[in-house]
């Protein structure tokens, strides 16, 4: 049995359904992110694992023990909050040792553990400071040390970096990941930032409207999104409505252009409409290759973004976004120019819904 099991969990606040039919199994030592737009139920789900909310129905099981109705102070979970939530009246060391003092550990053991935790989070020099004397990033390190001091069974982080500036977010997130791997602790990380989720997780749970859209490795959810929501939420994407021309040959029509896909369409009917999606980086200027789909259009705009160049192309009624890698000898197309672009058959994703 998995280390953490969230089984058929639902949560309603009055008439608002915050979480519906949430099922997830988490292995020991696994780092899972909940990713989704604001209000999709990520925090609520996390809080049900922490014990701050009780599910309307369903079960939460950690290490074989059903903890659905256990109060948070008996759950053995560590929690890191977006607002840091350090105790303003205690020093850094006081904060980190709080849980250990509550657990009535011997004084010298507390001191050793606190030193350890401050070492781990690179905060050793700051033990005597008060939270208000620390920067946001340092405060969050202390909060992390505090959450880990009791060696909890699972670490829960609710958008821990969203109050920090972009550069710090990037460095701190890899540090969080490194610490989690060093301790081998299971972790759930809530974020609305797809880059953050993709970069640090073993698996990503993409949520929308209180329900899971897709669970998979960062590679899977990016490259093989199963729903149009996932496809659109993660990365930039071209989505079109396409008419099936021949289910056997796997051909579709977008506007007046024909595309071939590798997706199994045999269950569909000729003339049925499906959603298809193409990542901008899978589109290139055409070269002769029979495996490729060819599309024609005219350049609408060219935007230089540094490492990539983003080209918008008008294809009939649709707008196509194409990313090409920058190189100094690139000949940038001109606005209004007529072009032919290509994308491989397997780059055209057919979305389930």
């Amino acid at each position, binding site marked *: 049995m998995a280390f953490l099991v969230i089984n058929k969990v639902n949560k309603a606040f009055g008439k608002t359904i915050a979480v519906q039919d949430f099922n997830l199994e988490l292995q020991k030592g696994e780092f899972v992110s909940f990713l989704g737009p604001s209000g999709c139920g990520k925090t609520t789900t996390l809080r049900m694992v*922490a*014990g*701050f909310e009780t599910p309307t129905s369903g079960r939460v099981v950690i290490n074989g023990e059903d903890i659905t109705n256990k*109060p*948070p*102070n*008996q*759950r053995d*979970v*560590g*929690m890191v*909050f977006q*607002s840091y*939530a*350090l*105790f*303003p*009246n*205690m020093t850094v060391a006081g904060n980190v040792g*709080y*849980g250990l003092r*509550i*657990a009535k550990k011997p004084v010298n053991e507390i001191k050793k553990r606190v030193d350890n935790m401050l070492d781990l989070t690179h905060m050793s020099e700051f033990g005597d400071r*008060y*939270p*208000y*004397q620390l920067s946001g990033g340092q405060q969050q390190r202390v*909060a992390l040390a*505090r*959450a880990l001091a*009791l060696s909890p069974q699972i670490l829960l982080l609710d958008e821990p970096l969203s109050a920090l500036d972009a550069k710090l977010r990037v460095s701190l997130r890899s540090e969080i990941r490194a610490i989690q791997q060093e301790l081998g602790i299971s972790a759930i990380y809530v974020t609305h930032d797809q880059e953050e989720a993709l970069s640090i997780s073993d698996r990503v749970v993409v949520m929308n409207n209180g329900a899971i859209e897709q669970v998979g490795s960062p590679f899977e959810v990016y490259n093989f999104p199963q729903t149009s929501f996932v496809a659109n939420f993660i990365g930039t994407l071209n989505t079109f409505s396409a008419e099936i021309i021949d289910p056997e040959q796997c051909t579709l029509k977008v506007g007046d252009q024909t595309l071939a896909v590798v997706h199994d369409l045999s269950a569909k009917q000729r003339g049925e409409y499906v959603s298809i999606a193409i990542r901008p980086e899978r589109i290139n200027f055409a070269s002769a290759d029979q495996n490729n789909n060819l599309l024609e259009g005219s350049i609408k705009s060219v935007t230089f973004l540094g490492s990539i160049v983003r080209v918008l192309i008008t294809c009939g009624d649709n707008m196509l976004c194409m990313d090409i890698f920058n190189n100094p000898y690139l000949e940038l197309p001109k606005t209004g120019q007529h072009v032919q672009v290509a994308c491989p058959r397997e780059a055209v994703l057919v979305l389930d819904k």
Partner: protein
Amino acid sequence: MASTKDRKVVEMNTFAGLRKLPLWSWIWFILGLLYFVLPLYGTLDFSLRMQRDVIGLKAYHMAFADKAFWQTFGYSFFLATMTIIVSICLIVPTAYWIRLRLPEARRIVEFITLLPFVIPAIVLVFGLIRLFSSPITLPVAGIVLLPPLTNTVFGTNVLMVAGYMVLGLPYIYRSVDLGMRTVDVRTLTEAAESLGANWYTIILTVILPNIRASLLSGALLIFAIVVGEVVLASFLGIKTFGPYLLLLGQQRSYEPAALSFTTFLMTWAAMGIIQKISGGQGHVAGAH
């Protein structure tokens, strides 16, 4: 530390701002200042002239030499302390619970805490006397639940503290609630809970230390109310400082002036203490 520097900057800014103020503002400001300072000066001056043609502290000596002064003041001090303790024990958990679990009840509770402003103390004291001067019995078997409280010293003290609590309610509730607004009690509570703490421990180790400046200001306000209160004490017939001061004012002239001025000084000292303790608000913990 950063706070001192910040404060200096603020002071300099206000100073620069003051100089820019137009003449009329200055005139109004000085008039207002005189309005407050002149009576105070008058009181001080008067209190120093008990002996003819001599400026001296005789009135102060006389006032403080009176045994009744110390007795009544001590008694009021005791009642104030009890009121503060009971109020804090009652209001802190209540305000905490409302912030955490019953935010919808905030308006109702705020309304209730404002009632003492609307209902005069005289109504309160008559209610107390009516209700508690006869034994409270169960209507059926005639079992006595509570003997008449007004008959015993202890009972009267209980009534006094209860009454003072009602009078101080608006102040203490507001202070505590404001204190809880400045620290994020909800998240702090959750953080402490996930670290294994129970409610009792959380209130003691997290909530109280972080609202201590508000608690202190609430407590000082209660103290001021209790020490000066007259109506409740006279009608319940006990000898506290309020009625003593009133009586003194009717019989003597210099001593009450001396005591009034002392009270002013004490109030200022108290406000200074609050300012000192809550000076670094926002980083409360830095105070020690």
